[in-house]
């Protein structure tokens, strides 16, 4: 029992995903259809990508509530620049630059001025969403100019049977897993989350570490937004609204500890998969979609309870 408790949370979540998928394929015929699997995997890729960054933020003992709004801002900017006739590379760079700026502001305020991450990113949640409204003038953008097909192919296309965003997530997750294990920065991220004073005494550049994770989180939100508008074929300023909850839920369910000091790449991906699977199952079982928020919110609380039970055993 002791060794079971010590198994990483990502393993438990993966087993839960497998079990839920097994049950669903028995009780719901459309679940196992290739179309449904394709859709579920694509939907969770957008969330999983952002959850990788969120996991790094949470591992420092912080939180990034602004990811959904950063998606909206980056999406709108990318869409508008494309619509003005610019190439996709330039438009994506513009969208990512906006995301970068949001991340730098978050990270500088949290890292160097030592403001509370909760308050800073809550402020950014409102600011970035408002900027998206101002810039778009509350209009939907669906004319993506000469590079429209390229964008739609990038976000909506598939390669070897998997949606492009899923491929990107796989690459990013492997990269993030290697980063967590082998980079000095990731080691410092965990040290800052574990004991900030100790990290500082040991010469870890605490403020810079904090800045970096918020920048990473925002950039991943921006990248995810660009893929998403390619899939949707249009962008409104509401893009990514409420996603912060799903992203944070994915990271926490995947084993990122909100007290800091713990978290991993595979956990984030497995957590995102579980959340999307729950959403999809509820839909297929005919549960009123209004209930989805209750289930996603409830799953965060349950994940924390499970974590508490595991923790008391060691």
């Amino acid at each position: 029992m002791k060794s079971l408790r010590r198994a990483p949370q990502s393993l438990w979540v993966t087993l839960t995903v497998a079990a839920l998928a097994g049950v669903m394929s028995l009780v719901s015929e459309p679940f196992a259809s290739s179309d449904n699997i394709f859709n579920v995997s694509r939907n969770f890729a957008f969330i999983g990508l952002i959850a990788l960054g969120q996991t790094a933020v949470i591992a420092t003992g912080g939180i990034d509530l602004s990811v959904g709004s950063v998606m909206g801002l980056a999406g709108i900017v990318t869409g508008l620049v494309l619509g003005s006739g610019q190439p996709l590379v330039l438009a994506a760079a513009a969208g990512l630059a906006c995301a970068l700026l949001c991340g730098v502001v978050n990270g500088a305020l949290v890292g160097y001025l030592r403001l509370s991450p909760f308050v800073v990113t809550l402020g950014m949640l409102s600011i970035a969403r408002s900027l998206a409204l101002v810039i778009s003038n509350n209009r939907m953008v669906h004319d993506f100019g000469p590079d429209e097909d390229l964008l739609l192919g990038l976000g909506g296309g598939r390669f070897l049977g998997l949606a492009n965003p899923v491929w990107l997530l796989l690459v990013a997750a492997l990269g993030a897993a290697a980063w967590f294990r082998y980079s000095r920065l990731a080691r410092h991220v965990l040290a800052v989350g574990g004991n900030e004073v100790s990290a500082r005494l040991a010469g870890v550049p605490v403020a810079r570490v904090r800045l970096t994770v918020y920048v990473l989180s925002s950039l991943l939100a921006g990248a995810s937004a660009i893929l998403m508008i390619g899939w949707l074929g249009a962008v409104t300023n509401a893009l990514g609204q409420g996603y912060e909850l799903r992203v944070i839920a994915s990271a926490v369910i995947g084993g990122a500890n909100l007290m800091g000091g713990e978290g991993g790449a595979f956990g984030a991906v497995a957590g995102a998969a579980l959340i999307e699977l729950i959403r999809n199952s509820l839909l297929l079982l005919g549960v009123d979609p209004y209930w989805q928020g209750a289930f996603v919110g409830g799953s965060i609380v349950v994940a924390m309870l499970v974590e508490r039970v595991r923790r008391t055993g060691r």
Partner: protein
Amino acid sequence: MLELKSVGMRFGAVEALLDVDLEVGAGEVAGLMGDNGAGKSTLLKIVAGNFAPTSGRVLWGGADVDLSPLSARELGIEAVYQDLALCDNLSAAANVFLGRELSRRLFGILPVLDHAAMRRRSTELFEELGSDTRADDLVRRMSGGQRQAVAIARARLSSPRLMLLDEPTAAISVRQIAEVLELIRGLKEQGVGILLVSHRMSDVFAVADRIVVLRRGRKVADKPTAESSPEEVTALITGAIEAA
């Protein structure tokens, strides 16, 4: 090795230290005792370079030095603090190398953490200290004595010549205290000078070569452990005996 000459420290109107002389040689354990507020921590912080004394001289190897936290480290002075300052969520090896991680280059370019080398070196350090601490264990699951070994191993990494130990036996169990005292003896055998600050009379008498007593910022005793007794030191600390 380390010499303080009539060092004084004043915080505003408060005289924290007054005219204190102190010497610590290589392989010597000096036990620094005194009541709360006697000036032990202030003295330790001066030697660690955290405070500059307001009067007097600090000599290292016979030459005057201006200590800062960085220059103290460069001279070979390492402090291990009471709260230990470890990251509970990381392994022993990760803590030993925190901030000075070893890396190797993958494909000649990409820098990656060299876990094997850090594990090997930490294991060596723990063996030198005679501790049963394992490099891969999380600090969270360690005993107080093992945690102390991790903190000392971290300080040992740079092969210091003088170690400042601030209450290393506070808040740990009796069995672990024995472990820590063994660590201190091990360091002494390797020629490391030790300035040990402790409240626990029995620990100081067990490992110190010399006992230094501070009272209200003044040094009231400085003599070989063999020539003193716990009763005398208690009297010196409380002021029942003026000086010895």
